[in-house]
């Protein structure tokens, strides 16, 4: 089952604009990660934020995490046509076996950046 939902399901913007995607989840987490997927291919890891962090930056990406509201947002600034893809949030609740990595994904946001 999906952990949560992304909002909006689809987003269309012009090149140069900012894109904001939101993610809600249901259970306590160790960390939350954002992935990008182009045209139904493999996922590319974008950024990870731990449960004790509130904000993180990586290049044009900014991620926030609000554990009290069980929500996160991904901001892509100055978007480019190459940013067109599906974006997924994934939560890692940790594991009693020691390894992490049982990621629970949201439903995804399809971003289209037009020239």
């Amino acid at each position, binding site marked *: 089952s*999906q952990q949560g939902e992304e909002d909006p399901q689809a987003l269309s913007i012009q090149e140069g604009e900012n894109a904001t995607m939101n993610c809600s989840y249901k259970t306590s987490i160790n960390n939350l990660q954002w992935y990008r997927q182009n045209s139904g291919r493999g*996922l590319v890891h974008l950024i990870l934020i731990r449960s004790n962090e509130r904000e993180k930056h990586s290049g044009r990406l900014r991620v926030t995490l609000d554990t009290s509201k069980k929500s996160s947002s991904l901001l892509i600034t100055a978007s480019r046509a190459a940013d067109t893809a599906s974006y997924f949030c994934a939560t890692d609740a940790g594991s009693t076996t020691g*390894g992490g990595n*049982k990621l629970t*994904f949201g439903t995804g946001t399809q971003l289209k950046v037009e020239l």
Partner: protein
Amino acid sequence: DAGVTQSPTHLIKTRGQQVTLRCSPKSGHDTVSWYQQALGQGPQFIFQYYEEEERQRGNFPDRFSGHQFPNYSSELNVNALLLGDSALYLCASSFFSQETQYFGPGTRLLVL
């Protein structure tokens, strides 16, 4: 440095058949996880292998089984295929204690 590789890229099977998908992890990684992604959905965790043992399992029936070899590569086997097993199957690798996973390009399975 090769990333995660999967084979085959595409596969067509009929209901009731069995299928084996293969994954080679990123160099140095010792943990392999498998995910199923139905069309229009996010990936769902199937199971994770470390030290040739299944360490965690998602909500998938016993028809889904796996194996990890001493060189850390892995196989996903699905028996008695159903139409609903049609999906993109993704393999991801990592170090056991590492939080970030690296995904392969996936195998697209179509069950007719």
